């Protein structure tokens, strides 16, 4: 990848060297631009907006239109880049490394950027009205050291999906509510044979932290206690052992759950009707509805701690501090956060609202209801802790190893805990 990245860097000097007159012109232009930038009164004439690609059909069209509207209103041009989730971390890192950060960025993390002092806080780029419209949970989920830096862009919540036909055939009357019921249900579905799988457990690197979070919380465990990481607590060890048992003792999961990703693994199997139960979210429901192949139901997570807890995921918009961009960025954010605008996009993508006004608008939709009902009991992963960006990757790369045959849950959790503590200590 370094080769690829450096290749890109290399392109620029080639052109410059080859076209000496152009070099001079651009050098002068660059100097002028720098001069403009240095002048605090001057405002930028274009902003770079980097958006993660949620879906082929909706993401680019929506942001394209929004950008055009914005340019019409303000005269400021938008350099819009819609980037695939697989490469967005790499691209953003490269931009910042080359001192060319975006003005507005959409990502699933924010606190490292806030910690590095790269971001405008909400007070600088957002009206009080817009800020107050955010649901309290999501405002809290975007705060770093008491200030809002990660503006909620959309949210999603996990829910428990079950294949009604398979559960009925296995004689399971209702979706399981406790872990014991869950194991029994999974065993019965698995016993149907012909490659039927009780529960599809994706603990491969793609999204292991999400799957793990939900099981962990439903056993009363957590990532942190106060300011301290407590990944290797007894509760969590019990949870990981439980997941390992599902795979190795009860044998009610697909083969190698520690090496199965979510999208092309667990979801694919569920969409194919092979799986009794899986932890899904609203975009999966959209795909299932479109394909019409699986008769599925959505329920609360089975719990071992009394109350079912689910995971809410909040994605963010961030505004990078760049000379003269404050006004332009403010106007861009205000445009997105118009209640009808943000709701139109969130609805199209099949996600959940992050604003009070959006919640009111979306409540009527019966498809969204199960997730909205789950939101009050939803928890967020600790994105507000700057160490999270490393902890998340560590969990993704390691927790799957614990549920493999011969895996050692305690050793894996202890190592995660050590790394989390080290990351929190700052390096």
């Amino acid at each position, binding site marked *: 990848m370094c*080769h690829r990245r450096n290749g890109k860097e290399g392109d620029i000097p080639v052109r410059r060297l080859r076209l000496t007159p152009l070099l001079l012109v651009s050098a002068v232009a660059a100097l002028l631009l720098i001069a403009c930038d240095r002048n605090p009164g001057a405002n930028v004439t274009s902003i770079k907006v980097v958006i993660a690609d949620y879906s082929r059909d909706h993401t680019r069209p929506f942001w394209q239109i929004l950008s055009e509207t914005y340019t019409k209103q303000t005269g400021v041009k938008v350099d819009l880049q819609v980037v695939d989730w697989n490469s967005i971390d790499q691209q953003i*890192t490269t931009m910042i490394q080359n001192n060319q950060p975006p003005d507005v960025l959409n990502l699933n993390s924010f606190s490292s950027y806030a910690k590095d002092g790269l971001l405008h806080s909400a007070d600088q780029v957002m009206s009080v009205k817009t800020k107050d419209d955010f649901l309290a949970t999501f405002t809290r989920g975007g705060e770093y050291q008491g200030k809002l830096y990660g503006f909620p862009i959309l949210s999603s919540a996990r829910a428990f999906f079950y294949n009604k036909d398979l559960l009925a055939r296995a004689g399971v009357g209702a979706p399981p509510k406790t872990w014991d019921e869950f194991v029994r249900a999974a065993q019965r579905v698995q016993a149907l044979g012909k490659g039927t799988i009780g529960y599809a457990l994706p*603990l491969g*690197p793609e999204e292991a932290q999400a799957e793990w979070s939900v099981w962990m919380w439903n056993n009363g465990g957590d990532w942190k206690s106060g300011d301290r990481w407590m990944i290797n607590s007894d509760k969590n060890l019990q949870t990981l052992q439980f997941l390992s048992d599902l795979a190795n003792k009860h044998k009610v999961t697909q083969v*190698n759950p520690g090496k199965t990703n979510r999208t092309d693994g667990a979801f694919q199997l569920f969409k194919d009707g092979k799986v009794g139960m899986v932890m899904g979210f609203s975009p999966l429901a959209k795909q299932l509805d479109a394909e019409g192949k699986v008769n599925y139901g959505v329920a609360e997570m089975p719990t071992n701690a009394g109350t079912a807890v689910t995971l809410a995921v909040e994605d963010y918009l961030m505004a990078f501090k760049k000379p003269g961009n404050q006004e332009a960025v403010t106007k861009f954010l205000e445009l997105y956060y118009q209640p009808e605008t943000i709701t139109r996009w969130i609805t199209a993508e099949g996600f959940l609202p992050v604003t009070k006004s959006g919640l009111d608008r979306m409540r009527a939709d019966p498809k969204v209801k199960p997730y909205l009902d789950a939101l009050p009991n939803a928890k967020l992963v600790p994105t507000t802790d700057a160490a999270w*960006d*490393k902890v998340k990757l560590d969990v993704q*790369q390691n927790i799957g190893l614990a549920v493999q045959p011969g895996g050692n849950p305690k050793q894996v959790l202890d190592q995660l805990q050590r790394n989390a503590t080290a990351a929190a200590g700052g390096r």
Partner: protein
Amino acid sequence: MRGPRRARRATGWQALLWLGPSLALIGGVVAYPAAQLIRASLSQYSVTGLYQGSVGLRNYARLLRQEALTTVVANTVVWVTVIVVVALLMSLGLAQFLDKRFPGRRLVRWALIVPWAASLIMTSKLFVWIYDYYFGILNPVLQSLGVLDHPVDWLGDDSTVMGAMITVGIFVSLPFTTYVLLAGLQAIPPDVFEAARVDGASAWRTYRLVTFPLLRPALLVAAVLNIIYVFNSFPIVWTLNDRNPGFGHDTMITYMYKIAFKSSLRDVGLAAALGVVNVLLILLAVLVYLRSVRWHAQEA
């Protein structure tokens, strides 16, 4: 005297003018990125990619302390050696075959180019679905042939992942290698074969004593370029191994990417240090190889 000298000077300038674009290209695509890579390897960056100052050789020292390094280096050695050796051996046969005249030769030659022309990511994705435990066609085929009793999770089972990836690596290396060797075969003048025939040499003897020695330059080129390509290959390992946690099946190239963006290290400086090591290592490997086949003897 004056005339020619002036002419020569003019040629010098002219030469520079003509060489300029390619020099600029080399400067821009080779020298500048290399300098940037080295600079990055001596620097510290935060998780976000923000430059935090120079740290001298500390990244290199940290690199050597990474637990996964031994596994990754061993993987890389296996990955490169097996693919290059097997691809060369198979290509020797294929090239010999394609050199013969037979009906449909053109079609076969074209067919061989396809895996080369297809994007590596696409080929790799295709193989992911071929190997897949639940949806793949490999398991049913092998089971119906009686080769396997039980389906195998080719990409999830630690004992089969590397083999599965190497198979794809060989598959995509064959076209290029075969064509280099085919070109080498066709460059051999027909009269040497004629002479061999006149002398009554058997087919095997002709191959061993005439064809193979004359093919050595082409073989050398194919080997060196393949070592470099295979070592630097990213998409196959990345795509086929993406479901596996940890670094157990990574090569130095995918490990470098994971250090920078996908592991808890998330460290561009450390990854750049590995990048520099990778470049040096591949140079060293090629030099050692050229030495062992006595490059200079060949030239003479």
